[in-house]
């Protein structure tokens, strides 16, 4: 049985009728839940029977943020690019690529965060401003987590460089020091600035020793009594062995040199070199990695992971990745000191330090308000081949599950559906089915939009969806009296039944008006004419009219006859065709041969003999019958005369 990982959030529905003792809700289109309510936004409280309004609850509301849209669009490009770097790359170059992708994702988060920050500053006091600043802190937490994951899981930094990466990580996210530094250095007398020592300490805590030394030299210049001590401490900072990226020294060498340096610091402290200046002495203690001295700077450290990194820098510079979680746990415990309990962010970072990827993703899914983060991070980690063994008891695997969850949020959005398509494409198991279900639900407001949806379907050979979209458009066109358009759509869908229906409408219109509409289309049907019998008939019948118009009577006559004898023409239309034959029969020269005239006669007899007799003919029926009988009589007469003329003509021709 599954367990809940936390309390479900409660959403209040205003104006719910609790007397009814029932709450009706249902899944609406997309990712929304709709509930009946009598709540009226306009404030009028009319009592109406039943519930006249519905309340819509949307999941994943971050999709609707205007600024986050940039994040979605830009990261979509990165995502698609990531799916393309595939197998051919191995080893180092692949890792470099993946790290670059990860950095790209982070820079997009940062850009978004900065813009959001500007908005938050711009209207500080309003509710939307507060919302912006809460978004900023969420984005900044996302970047913090992503960056740590990048160091631990993608970069897979070994002992030594690991600490350098962690230092960068802390420097990037605890950046108040830069503004402080600018503030202090900008003042008239930096060393007398009230935050001067805070600045020096923070620089030391972040391992920015060169800058700290420069600060100390400023102090030495203005304060001759402590100049000596500052120089000694500065020398200690300068001589601290650090791993530099281009250096070839081994870890053991480093450890040895570091040990020597550590002992020297220790000696200075024992000798009381800094005894006269408590500030310098506490700095020296920091250099020794003394827990108590570090914890004294709690205010400056601001959070436990900064404490962790400072502690590692001055006590375990060559910490191994596997030991990281021990230090992390003790740092967290020391820093919180039992006063407060860890927050979700702390738990996520701790899980990362423990190298428990699944825990990281799980905690993030619970804590963050959107699927963007977990979906993209999981996908990236999957490309690092870190998630393969893990299967879920629902869906196919975690990567796919999260990507599809994110994609369905995009499909629920009014305009972001195009992004969702690519996410579905890269989910091998359930992506296709999911896309099929979503794509059918996109409202087709204009033909242009429909064409875009159609292109998506056609590229993926989704024939069923192509048919249904074309049919919707054809239906719409019929409703709007645009028969030409309707016919083109049904030809595109290869929908024979609908083409027949539209052709019938054309023929009916012709019978009513006596002329064809939309000739530009019908005259240019080409091979598409073969789609349905009725369409073929429509095209051929129009051809007959054209031949007749061009006075090519013989061709027209044989075409007309073949339409009936080949059974292409529907029975109901035969009388019209025979009537069309009348003027041809009445021409001066003989057009129908005797043979053809016999055929025409047979058609006419077929038509008249097959007619059922009405039991109780009413007045109108009688009148119609009357017209019908006159027509038949006229036809018979014309046919008989033509037969006579053709026999004479053929006979005389043979005779001569």
């Amino acid at each position, binding site marked *: 049985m599954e367990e809940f990982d936390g309390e479900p959030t409660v959403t209040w529905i205003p104006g719910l009728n609790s007397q009814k003792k029932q709450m009706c809700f249902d899944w609406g289109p997309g990712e929304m839940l709709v509930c009946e309510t009598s709540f009226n936004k306009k404030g009028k409280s009319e009592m109406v029977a039943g519930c006249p309004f519905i309340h819509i609850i949307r999941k994943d509301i971050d999709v609707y943020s*205007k600024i986050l*849209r940039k994040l979605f669009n830009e990261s979509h490009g990165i995502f698609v690019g990531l799916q393309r770097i595939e197998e051919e790359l191995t080893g180092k170059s692949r890792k470099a690529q993946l790290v670059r992708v990860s950095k790209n994702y982070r820079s997009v988060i940062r850009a978004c965060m900065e813009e959001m920050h500007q908005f938050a500053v711009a209207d500080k006091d309003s509710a939307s401003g507060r919302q912006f600043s809460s978004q900023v802190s969420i984005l900044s937490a996302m970047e913090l987590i992503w960056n740590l994951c990048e160091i631990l899981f993608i970069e897979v930094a070994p002992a030594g460089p690991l600490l350098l990466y962690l230092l960068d990580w802390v420097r990037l996210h605890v950046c108040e020091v830069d503004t402080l530094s600018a503030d202090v250095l900008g003042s008239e007398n930096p060393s007398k600035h009230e935050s001067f020592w805070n600045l020096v300490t923070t620089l030391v805590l972040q391992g920015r020793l060169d800058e700290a030394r420069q600060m100390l030299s400023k102090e030495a210049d203005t304060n001759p009594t402590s100049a000596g001590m500052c120089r000694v401490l500065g020398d200690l900072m300068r001589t601290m062995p650090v791993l530099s990226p281009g250096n070839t020294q081994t870890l053991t060498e480093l450890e040895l040199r570091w040990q020597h340096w550590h002992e020297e610091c220790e000696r200075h402290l024992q000798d009381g070199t800094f005894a006269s200046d408590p500030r310098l002495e506490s700095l020296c203690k920091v250099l020794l990695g003394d827990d108590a001295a570090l914890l004294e700077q709690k205010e400056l450290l601001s959070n436990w992971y900064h404490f962790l990194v400072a502690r590692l820098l001055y006590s375990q510079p060559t910490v191994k990745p596997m030991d990281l979680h021990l230090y992390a746990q003790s740092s967290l415990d020391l820093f919180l000191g039992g006063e407060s309990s860890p927050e979700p962010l702390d738990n996520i970072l701790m899980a990362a330090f423990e190298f428990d990827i699944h825990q990281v993703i799980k905690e993030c899914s619970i804590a963050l308000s959107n699927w963007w983060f977990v979906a993209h991070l999981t996908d990236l980690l999957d490309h690092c081949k870190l998630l393969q063994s893990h299967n879920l008891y629902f869906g196919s695997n975690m990567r796919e599950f999260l990507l599809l969850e994110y994609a369905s949020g995009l499909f629920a959005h*009014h305009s972001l559906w195009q992004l969702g398509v690519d996410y579905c494409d890269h989910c091998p198991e359930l992506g296709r089915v999911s896309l099929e279900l979503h794509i059918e639900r996109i409202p087709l*407001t204009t*033909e242009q939009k429909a064409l875009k949806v159609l*292109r998506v379907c056609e590229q993926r050979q989704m024939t069923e969806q192509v048919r249904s979209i074309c049919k919707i458009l054809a239906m719409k066109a019929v409703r709007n009296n*645009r028969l*030409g358009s309707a016919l083109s759509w049904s030809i595109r869908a290869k929908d024979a039944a609908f083409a027949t229906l539209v052709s019938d409408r054309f023929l009916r219109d012709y019978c009513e008006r006596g002329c064809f509409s939309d000739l530009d289309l019908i005259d240019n049907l080409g091979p598409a004419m073969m789609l349905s019998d009725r369409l073929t008939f429509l095209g051929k019948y129009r051809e007959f009219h054209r031949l007749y118009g061009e006075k090519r009577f013989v061709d027209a006559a044989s075409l007309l006859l073949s339409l009936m004898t080949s059974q292409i023409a529907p029975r109901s239309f035969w009388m019209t065709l025979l009537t069309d034959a009348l003027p041809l029969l009445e021409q001066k020269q003989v057009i129908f041969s005797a043979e053809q005239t016999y055929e025409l006669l047979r058609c006419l007899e077929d038509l008249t003999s097959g007619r059922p007799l009405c039991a109780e003919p009413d007045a109108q029926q009688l009148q119609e019958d009357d017209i019908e009988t006159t027509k038949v009589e006229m036809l018979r007469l014309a046919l008989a005369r033509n037969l006579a003329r053709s026999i004479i003509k053929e006979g005389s021709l043979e005779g001569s």
Partner: protein
Amino acid sequence: MEEIYAKFVSQKISKTRWRPLPPGSLQTAETFATGSWDNEENYVSLWSIGDFGNLDSDGGFEGDHQLLCGIKHHGDVMDLQFFDQERIVAASSTGCVTIFLHHPNNRTLSVSQQWTAAHYHTGPGSPSCSNAPCTGVVCNSPEIVTVGEDGRINLFRADHKEAVRTIDNADSSTLHAVTFLRTPEILTVNSIGQLKIWDFRQQGNEPTQILSLTGDRVPLHCVDRHPNQQHVVATGGQDGMLSIWDVRQGTMPVSLLKAHEAEMWEVHFHPSNPDHLFTCSEDGSLWHWDASTDGPEKSLLFHQGGRNSTFLSHSISNQANVHQSLISSWLSTDPAKDRIEITSLLPNRTLSVNSLDVLGPCLVCGTDAEAIYVTRQLFS
């Protein structure tokens, strides 16, 4: 083509247009208009690529475009054209045609004139008509011509409240785009692969000429006329093919060039350098076609991606009767002689590139990935 700037704008861009320069001006383009589509709220916006005094010296910002002003637009912006320096005509999916006026002083846009329900359907039996999207608009001051899904052609004048001329049922299928050929003649393309030429001097609703692609009736989505040689017309189709037509002769295209892999949404001759042509497509690509014959050893080349573009030429006529010097480089039909260099302008494929516009050395395009790309060094 090194410097191409992208900016994400949180709305899908359907149209981008440069503001025309005042005649005789030596400046380069610096203001363009965009229209959005498929958003819950759509906008017509004006942007500037000019340098702003208040920007910091951060080099990356220099070419970036800044929003000047915007106004809400009802429905998708289906087409957008500058009427003159200050006025923009927008075609809406609601069938409405609007002229927006730009007030440069207080940086606002306002509605200056509107023809609601310029395009509409008449349903069977029901007297109420439903609106039909207006798909294309073209301006030639003071005239504005619009076409729509209802197959209707409207001729408006900026100072007239009512349409000056309407051709109902001009086309049995959807009209996708329109351009002026020579006043008062216009040219439309439709969704069954036909080009139709209309003359407003003639009464009735019949075109003076119909040209069509043979066979498959591939829909045509865009059309542009050669700026100097008015008989040369380029169209782009649903299959991504670029067709060059000579409307004086034949009913078939002079040449068919295999281009994009999906719908070609727009094609534009360079207004002052018409040996250059630009196309963009649903497949997310933006191409620059260079048919100038000044390069000594240019052959049909495609620079990026290595995809060969095949040249399918229909030798309809050898044009022996036409003066050699007058032949446009686009009309020479001998494939061996033809030298067209094609360059892909966007760094990596994105979602559909819906629109582009060129003016002088500047190009702007807008995509469904909600980004606007601008370059100011087309021929560097």
